[in-house]
């Protein structure tokens, strides 16, 4: 079976989440005797494609009109690439782009799609997939029926693959002019942050409604994160209140993370938030409320006020 990974470029590198998808693809290849290829779509992706070739032979579709991932255009392109390469299994990362564009491609490829896969297994000659449901409260094994199976890999469940020797990069022959373009990209406001992304950081400092203002959140949560070289996360409540930026939201419908250390400060621990961080290796909580649900899911807890504990942590670390 041929397995095609839809990898995303991040500058001159392969995006971290895509490297996790490569790991799941390698597991699938080992379980089902498959061969792995990588496809990368975008504009100005030569360097990232060369980086991708250190994981598997890489095929590129590069064009100025593909600079932004609009779902109709990318979806049609992905479906054509999958058919051209004859792949029976397509694996992408569970990123916003993966969910948007790869799902649209999956519909064109027959509609068999497994979202947020965490593992796979060969049962009686057929791959079955494990995924989480119900805000991470349920793990399910699912069977995927169809000639082409499309899977998105949950980043937090798979360690990112390590590069080996660079292999080949080949440009695909796809008629870009014929791809649909009914979705018009207008602009994107990307965050300006020197911190690691919350999905990639080994340490995540996460803040909730205990912080009164966005300035306090940035000064305390951001300050502690910078002290330990970590990323910043937040509860939905803090995002909704305008205290933390949207892209920091950890939870069922935000980012799902599994860092080495998750430190939740002033976060009560709603079910939806727990779904996003409960698989972290070590979980610590600082809260004034000894009854906060997050404490049931933590390894260590300090009952303290965030405004006092964080400056002390920053001073002593």
């Amino acid at each position: 079976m041929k397995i095609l990974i839809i990898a995303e470029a991040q500058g001159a590198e392969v995006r971290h989440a895509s490297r996790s998808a490569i790991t799941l693809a390698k597991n699938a290849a080992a379980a089902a005797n498959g061969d792995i290829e990588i496809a990368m779509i975008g504009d100005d992706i030569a360097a990232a494609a060369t980086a991708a070739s250190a994981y598997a032979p890489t095929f590129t579709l590069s064009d100025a009109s593909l600079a932004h991932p609009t779902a109709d255009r990318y979806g049609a392109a992905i479906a054509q690439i999958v058919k051209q390469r004859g792949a029976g299994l397509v694996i992408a990362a569970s990123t916003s782009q993966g969910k948007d564009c790869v799902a649209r491609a999956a519909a064109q490829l027959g509609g068999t799609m497994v979202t947020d896969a965490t593992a796979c297994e060969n049962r009686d000659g057929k791959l079955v997939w494990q995924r989480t449901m119900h805000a991470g409260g349920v793990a399910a094994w699912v069977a995927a029926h169809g000639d082409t199976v499309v899977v998105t890999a949950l980043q937090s469940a798979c360690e990112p693959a390590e590069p080996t020797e660079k292999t080949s990069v080949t440009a695909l022959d796809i008629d870009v002019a014929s791809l649909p373009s009914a979705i018009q990209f207008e602009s994107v406001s990307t965050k300006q942050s020197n911190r690691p992304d919350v999905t990639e950081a080994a340490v995540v400092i996460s803040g909730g409604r205990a912080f009164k203002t966005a300035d306090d959140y940035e000064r305390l949560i951001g300050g502690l994160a910078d002290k330990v070289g970590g990323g910043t996360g937040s509860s939905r409540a803090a995002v909704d209140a305008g205290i933390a930026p949207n892209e920091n939201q950890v939870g069922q419908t935000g980012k799902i993370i599994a860092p080495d250390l998750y430190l939740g400060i002033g976060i009560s621990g709603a079910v939806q938030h727990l779904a996003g961080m409960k698989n972290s290796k070590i979980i610590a909580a600082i809260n004034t409320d000894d009854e906060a649900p997050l404490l049931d899911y933590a390894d260590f807890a300090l009952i303290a006020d965030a405004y006092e504990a964080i400056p002390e942590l920053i001073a002593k670390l």
Partner: protein
Amino acid sequence: MKILVPTKRVPDPDQPIHLNADKTAADLTGIPCVINPFDAIALEEALRIREEERSSAGSDIEIVAVGIGPQACEKEIRIALAMGADRAVHVVSDEYIDSWIASNLLKAVVDKEQPDLIIMGKQAIDADNNQAGQFLAHHLNWPQATFASEISFEGDRVKVARETDTGIENVSMELPAVITTDLRLNEPRYASLPAMMKAKRKQVDAYTPADLSVAVDPKVEIISMETLSAKRNCVRVNNVDELIVKLKEASVL
């Protein structure tokens, strides 16, 4: 303009999940159900579009809610009507419906209803699939804007701010189109008791999948499920110094 809003019935997310005897589905016996929270946001947005449109141009917007599932779904369909949908379509089925079948059923309803805009949740909070809107947009060959946090109209185009991993992305599309909603689009209203009474008289057209010529043949089937408990034995530390020691012992600092 006509806006179609799929409203899925899901177990109340604040309730613990129990599984059925053969561990292939959630057991909803005695579990309160709600409109999928993202679909409630979608319906709220449709209602706001109608309210704004009426106050500005006076043009009429019709909002049609769609429920798919067993007879019990009628309860959540009536709630959608009480929130303000004009009428509803109920595709009645006791079968397991995956995202693919749901998208095919919705396509068949769209063919009958001919809406100009579909607004729906980005995912249902039970299956967490995040597929049906994208599948439906493909079936219709319509543009899509997933994860919407802001929707506005400019002439014959709809502009959508999308929540992506890296920040807010702005796109525009011509109608008809599919939009899926993210959390920060709005906060849905509650259905009042008088509105619930009035909703009883609103029209609900019922179809079976067979009426719509859609095969109920899932692409992704659940083999087994297990509930996960992630509770840990929490050690209370007394001060910041002790916390630092524990985290250093665990080699995470």
